[in-house]
C-alpha cells in the first residue's frame, strides 16, 4: 500500500488555523492540539482577540465568526457561552467565543473571522 497517501489522509497533528481580519487580511497559524482557539490566537499575536478575562468565558472579548463550512465541526455554544455572547457586539449565527473552542486534529484547516470590534 502506498504509505504517503494514507499519511496525507490523516489529520495533521498541528492544525492550521486561518484568521481573517475585517479588512480581508489573512493570518494562518500552526497550532497545538488541546489548547483553545483563543490561546492559539494569543500565542500568534492575532489582532482583534482581546480575551480580557483570560479564557474564563466571562467577558466575550474573544468573539469570532466561524466560517460557514466549519460550523458543524466547531459545534454550537453551550448555555453559558450563549449567555456570554449577549455581551458581544454584532452577534451572528456563526458567533462563538474562541476560548470555548478546543483545537483538535479534526479542526485542521479551520477558518474564522475576527469581528470589526470586541467591546
Amino acid at each position, binding site marked *: 500500500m502506498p504509505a504517503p497517501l494514507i499519511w496525507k489522509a490523516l489529520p495533521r497533528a498541528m492544525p492550521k488555523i486561518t484568521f481573517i481580519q475585517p479588512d480581508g487580511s489573512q493570518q494562518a497559524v500552526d497550532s497545538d492540539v488541546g489548547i483553545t482557539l483563543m490561546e492559539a490566537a494569543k500565542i500568534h499575536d492575532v489582532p482583534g482577540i482581546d480575551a480580557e*478575562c483570560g479564557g474564563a468565558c466571562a467577558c466575550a*472579548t474573544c468573539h469570532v465568526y466561524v466560517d460557514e463550512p466549519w460550523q458543524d465541526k466547531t459545534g454550537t455554544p453551550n448555555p453559558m457561552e450563549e*449567555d456570554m*455572547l*449577549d*455581551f458581544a*457586539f454584532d*452577534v451572528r449565527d456563526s458567533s462563538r467565543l474562541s476560548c470555548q473552542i478546543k483545537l483538535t486534529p479534526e479542526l485542521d484547516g479551520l477558518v474564522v473571522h475576527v469581528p470589526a470590534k470586541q*467591546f
Partner: protein
Amino acid sequence: MSSEASPAAAAALIETDAVIIGAGPVGLFAVFELGLVDIKAHIIDILDKPGGQCAELYPEKPIYDIPALPTVTGQELTDRLLEQIKPFGAELHLNERVDALKRLPDGRFSLITDAGTEFITKVVVIAAGGGSFTPKRPPLPGIENFEGHSVFYSVRRIEAMRDKKVLIVGGGDSALDWTLALQPVAKSVTLLHRRDDFRAAPHSVEKMRQLVETGDVRLMIGQVSSIEGEGNQLTAATIKGKDGEERIDVDAMLPFFGLTMKLGPVADWGLHLTENLIPVDTEKFETSEQGIFAVGDINTYPGKLKLILSGFHEVALMAQQAHKYVHPEKKLLFQYTTSSSNLQKKLGVS
C-alpha cells in the same frame, strides 16, 4: 458623572493611615499586611461588592493556584479574605471611584471620590487590577455624542425618563429591571435583545412578558445597527432583526452590555505609566511617587506575573515600607503570626 453622583456633595472627610484603591483579593490582603504593622486602612472600590474580578467576572469559577487551597472559587476566596481581615476593621467604601489624588503640602495625600468623599492619608496603595469597571459602550458610530444626554448606562432619576420613548438593550437583570421600572413613566418602552432568551431573574422575565402581552412594552429580537440624532439628542435607532431592519423613534437609549475594565482616572494622577501599567520597584512596590504603592495586576516590573499569589507577596513587602512613612518613629520588628503574642493580639486570637 461626578457632579451627578454627589447630589448633596456631602463632603465627608476621612483621615486615615492608608487608603487602598481596589477591593480585589490583593487589595483585601493589603488590609491584613498593613494591619499587622499597625496601619489602619480604608478600601475604596467602584463595584457594589468586594472581590474585584474574582467577584465580578468569575465568582463561580475554581482557581487552582492559591497556595494551600487546591481549589477555591472567586467568591470563596473573597469571602475567606474578608474573614481573614476582619480583625483589622478596615472600612469598605463601595460604589465609589477615586477621581482625584494629589499630594498635600504636609506630605500626606488627598483622594476625592465621585461620591464626594475626601480621604486624607499618609500612604496610598493602588490595587486597582485592570482598572475601573465601567459599562461597555456599544461600538456604534457617534454614540459618544449622546452619552449623558440621551444615551445612559445607568439611570439616576426615573423622572428623567418621563414621557420619553425609551429603548432598552440587553437581556440581563439591569435591562429587565429598568424595563419594568420605566414602563409606568415612559411614553413607550422597547426592550431589545439579540435572542428571545433572558438571563434575568425569572419573575422579572415573566412580568416583562405580561407587559408585552398587554401591549405596554414592545419586545424586539435583534441588535442595534445604527443610531441617529441631532446634537446630543438621539432621535432614532435602526434595529436589525432576523427579518430585516426597522427604524424606530427613540428619545433615550439604555444599553446594558455588562462591564469592562478601563484604567480610568489613575492615568491622571501624574504617576509614571508603562502601557497602562504602573512601574514599581520589587523591594517596596512603590511607584514614581514616594508613599504611593501599586500592587497586583496594575503594577509592572521585570518578571511580573499577573497572579493573585504575586499580589499577596507584593503587599507584604509594601507594608514594610508603608510602616516607615506611617510610623517613622517606630522600629519595625519582624515577627511571625505563629509565635508573636503581639501579632496574635492584633488578630484577636490570643
